[in-house]
């Protein structure tokens, strides 16, 4: 089950992410973002983060992604103007990303851990308690930003 959720979520996230950065139509890109966010929410479930998955869907997808789409729809259709791709820019960006990928991948490969067995997902209660005790300060600060 967790493998399936991971593969499905990861596929959704990757495809969505790719769409989000390569689609020339901004509207499609926004949909790509929404896909990624949904896929990520799916990934959170095998990571014992059901609550976060729900919040991800509600806030991230429901508010952020939708507001982007909403604004695209309300605004004059500048997203339909598709500027020509600049080949050099694409190649350059890919180059930079590849350079960046090397250290990231090396760092990632250095850790390995398998799925902890019999790990009970934290309950909403637990998270709420932590929020109101350990993390109460940033929580109270948060509304100001």
């Amino acid at each position, binding site marked *: 089950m967790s493998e399936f959720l*991971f593969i499905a979520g990861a596929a959704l996230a990757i495809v969505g992410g790719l769409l989000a*950065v390569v689609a020339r139509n901004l509207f499609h890109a926004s949909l790509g*973002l929404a896909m990624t966010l949904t896929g990520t929410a799916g990934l959170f479930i095998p990571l014992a983060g059901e*609550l976060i998955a729900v919040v991800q869907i509600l806030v991230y997808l429901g508010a952020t992604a939708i507001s982007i789409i909403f604004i695209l729809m309300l605004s004059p259709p500048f997203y339909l103007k598709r500027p020509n791709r600049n080949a050099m820019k694409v190649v*350059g960006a890919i180059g930079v990303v590849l350079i960046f990928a090397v250290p990231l*991948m090396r760092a990632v490969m250095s850790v390995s851990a398998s*799925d902890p067995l019999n790990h009970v997902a934290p309950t909403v209660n637990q998270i709420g308690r*932590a929020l109101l005790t350990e993390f109460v300060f940033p929580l109270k600060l948060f509304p100001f930003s």
Partner: protein
Amino acid sequence: MSLSAYLILSAVLFLFGAFGMMERRNMVGLLISIELMLNAASINFMAFNHFLYPGTVTGQIMTLFVIGLAAAEATLFLAIVFAVYRHYRSINVERVDHLRG
């Protein structure tokens, strides 16, 4: 699945975001790329929490904050994008290059 799988996935999403930041011309496209990068960070937090530090909730809470900050950032960014559109009649970042040197 192992931790590495999640980390690789998040690194890939982060790099997609970085690519978008450099390649996209449309400012809304840039916003989408930023959201991708932030999202990659949240996957990391969740994965580390689950695999390495089970029984705690720090990573999950951090993810909550990331989601919230991303929402706030998106709002501010969109507001500025519209201000740009009013002035320049374009939201192409390459056009916004009067300041140099």
